[in-house]
């Protein structure tokens, strides 16, 4: 854009020589992976809890509570988590960011897994019990394999959300710790620079990669996968 003189990889070279930036990229990836992993585990259990709830009111109440973080504006989530961490005496930094990301990813995983659970015919569980399966057998041999597409979709959704998040992280990140999006924001507030251009391209590619993976998972997810097994 400014003094365009042809394509060059120099900016990327500079990017990777900058250890500070490298650490930020690593931070972002580590937080996203951990957050996605942990939130998937808790989210699957949560979806099960909601699915198994006997009373309609309990189910609805759990679902509403689940969706609070999805419909709430990011600023409110960020601000309220900031208060929470300060009150709890958790130092702002890696752990506060990780905890926040886990927290806002859980409901997403729940929403991705829940449809798979409700799509599952209840007689499938009866059938497994009928064939002698214990509670654990039913969980590990029937429920988990059945909802695994939902679990994968949830995991990648969580990964994408964590990766993409700016607003919540911005509130709870403190001074010493930064992620890609927060870094881009603070750079962008100072104006355009080719440095951010390279950084943005990186973030963009990561996100697109995740989206493509997610797309293929959700495509395989479609109930009557006619394409396979000819």
């Amino acid at each position: 854009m400014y003094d365009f003189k042809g394509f060059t990889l120099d900016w990327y070279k500079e990017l990777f020589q900058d250890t500070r930036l490298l650490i930020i990229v690593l931070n972002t990836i580590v937080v996203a992976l951990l957050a996605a992993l942990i939130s998937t585990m808790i989210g699957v259990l949560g979806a099960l809890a909601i699915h198994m709830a006997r009373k309609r009111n309990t189910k609805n109440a759990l679902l509403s509570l689940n969706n609070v973080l999805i419909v709430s504006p990011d600023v409110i989530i960020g601000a309220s988590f900031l208060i929470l961490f300060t009150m709890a005496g958790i130092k702002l930094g890696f752990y506060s960011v990780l905890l926040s990301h886990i927290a806002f990813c859980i409901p997403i995983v729940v929403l991705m897994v829940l449809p798979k659970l409700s799509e599952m015919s209840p007689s499938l569980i009866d059938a497994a019990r009928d064939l002698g399966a214990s509670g654990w057998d039913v969980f590990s041999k029937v429920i988990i394999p059945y909802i695994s597409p939902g679990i994968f979709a949830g995991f990648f959704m969580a990964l994408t959300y964590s990766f993409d998040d700016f607003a919540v992280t911005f509130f709870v990140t403190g001074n010493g710790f930064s992620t890609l999006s927060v870094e881009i924001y603070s750079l962008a507030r100072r104006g355009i620079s080719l440095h951010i251009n390279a950084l943005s391209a990186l973030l963009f590619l990561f996100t697109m990669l995740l989206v493509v993976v997610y797309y293929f998972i959700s495509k395989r997810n479609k109930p009557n996968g006619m394409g396979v097994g000819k």
Partner: protein
Amino acid sequence: MENVPIIQFKHVTKLYDNDPPVLKDVSFEIERGKFYTLLGPSGCGKTTILRLIAGFTEASEGEILFNGNKINHVPANKRQVNTVFQDYALFPHLNVFENVAFGLRIKKMKAPAIESKVKEALNFVNLQGYENREIREMSGGQRQRVAIARAIVNEPEVILLDEPLSALDLKLRTEMQYELRELQRRLGITFIFVTHDQEEALAMSDEIFVLNKGKIQQSGTPIDIYDEPINQFVADFIGESNIVKGKMIEDYLVEFVGRQFECVDQGLDKNEPVEIVIRPEDLEITSTEHGKLKVKVDSLLFRGVHYEISCYDQDGNEWLVHSTKKAAVGTEIGLHFDPEAIHVMRLGETEEEFDRRLEAYADVDNDGE
């Protein structure tokens, strides 16, 4: 021990929350090696009985015995019964072999034993060579067979079938009726079959339990139930029937539509009000002079094997006739029937009273000979 019924229900009641009970004080016995059918309209409690036997739900009151032992609180995975589900409930993430092998794997059986048992079970249901197919590649009838194989491979003493044929088309359904009956004979184990289709029940069963509103209305062989329905519900539900109000004048003489007819029933009180059942196929069309009843033809439907003719007598009772003869709409015709065709039902008679009365006839008949 062979004489102990394999399953016994003693005064079993089942309630969900505060709704009216699904089963009300139900008692019955299931004998070894027979084909039983639980027949009734939807919501009559037949599936609940099945779920109680399988252990998917617990009785609110009463006892359920298996081989003489109380099993009320035994969980489903510890019971000696296996179920074929209405929607088959095949595991979509497993192929045919693994579906059938599921129960054996849970029992931690050795791989070679599993292999041969699954093969044997699949042979039994004519699915040899389908081991590696995915469930979604199987047709409805084939899925049905996989579900049966998955149940029989565990060698249960009782197999429960929850309307397993309802999703199949008519032709396939008839075919499967034969096959199921044949399968039960070869295996020699008890089948408990749930259906709302009375033809299916009549064709397949050794014993039928007719259920309505959470109670067993009548139990017996298909022929008993068809010929001697205990009440209006059973008469209506099993086959088609003409039911009119009448009065028992004395033994072997009954009055309805203002006339007296010879019949074969006895042992009722004099002048007792009763209901009369005559099956449409037992009515014969004749001229008005020869007929025991004079009726006017209201409508006529061609049903393939016969005509279904709807007529009205002078009291306004409808008479349904199945006949291979045609009758012109609007004309007066006579209806003839044999004394044996008249079936007399006492109002509000329980199954025990009914059985006692039938036994009494038998005694009288025996004395007479």
